[in-house]
């Protein structure tokens, strides 16, 4: 468990941060979409992250052998939820989806907030890549003991 545990933990974070970037890209792509999959205007999606419980074989084994508890098995995506904040109402009577008063419900996507989320996910990704590189160099240093 111990030798590659650090890499597994960082890898779980890379997966999670990459999904956050994917969801931000989807939000940005659909910032003007008035007809989503369900026919209603697109709603901003958000990734919910949670701590991953050590349920892998290695974690269970090390816990059973008294090698400490199995805390810190990385991160996982709990789900992707829709942002339920109100949709933006834009006056555009010529729009095919305008209501009787001439207002169109536009997605509740704030492009500036999405860009900030994108940068946050990108920086978190980089931090975890650094942690992975540190783990890699630690392993190769340990292997030097054999020389």
């Amino acid at each position, binding site marked *: 468990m*111990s*030798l590659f*545990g*650090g890499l597994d*933990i*960082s890898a*779980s*974070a890379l997966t*999670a*941060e990459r999904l*956050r970037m994917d969801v931000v890209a989807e939000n940005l792509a659909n910032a003007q979409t008035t007809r989503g999959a369900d026919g209603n205007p697109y709603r901003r999606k958000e990734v919910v*992250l*949670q*701590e991953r419980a050590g349920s892998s074989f290695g974690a269970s084994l090390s816990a059973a052998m*008294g*090698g*400490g*508890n199995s*805390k*810190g*098995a*990385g*991160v996982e995506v709990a789900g992707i939820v829709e942002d339920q904040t109100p949709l933006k109402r834009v006056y555009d009577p010529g729009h095919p989806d305008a209501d009787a008063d001439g207002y169109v419900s536009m997605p509740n996507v704030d492009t500036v907030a999405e860009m900030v989320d994108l940068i*946050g*996910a990108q*920086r*978190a990704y980089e*931090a*975890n890549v*650094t*942690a*992975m590189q*540190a*783990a890699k*160099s*630690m392993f190769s*240093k*340990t292997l*030097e*003991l054999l*020389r």
Partner: protein
Amino acid sequence: MLFDTTQLALERSIEGAGKRHEALAANLANANTPGYQRVDVDFHGALASAMGRGEESREALHSVSFSPAQDASAGAVRADGSTVDVDAESAKLAANALEHQAAVQVAHARIGILKSAMGVG
């Protein structure tokens, strides 16, 4: 006895640094998890108390275990209650990797001394 207490302590500190790296990597992995409480492995403290046992320190070093514990002293750095400061975690990670490297190099040098004493180095 071929390997003395110091060599054993070096081996255990290499293992402890590995465990601490896992804890710090888990903190970085959960940098965006709401309400996450950072964990840390105090392998210095565990090793120091094992080393301080005098005659029994060898057995104590053998049986010392490193387990991650929640860091209750860390204050929340984010509005969602998370106590992970990415900069501080990165700094600790880098320092820990250097400590690991130092322990490996000293252990390597000591093995080299043994080898030349045996005439195989």
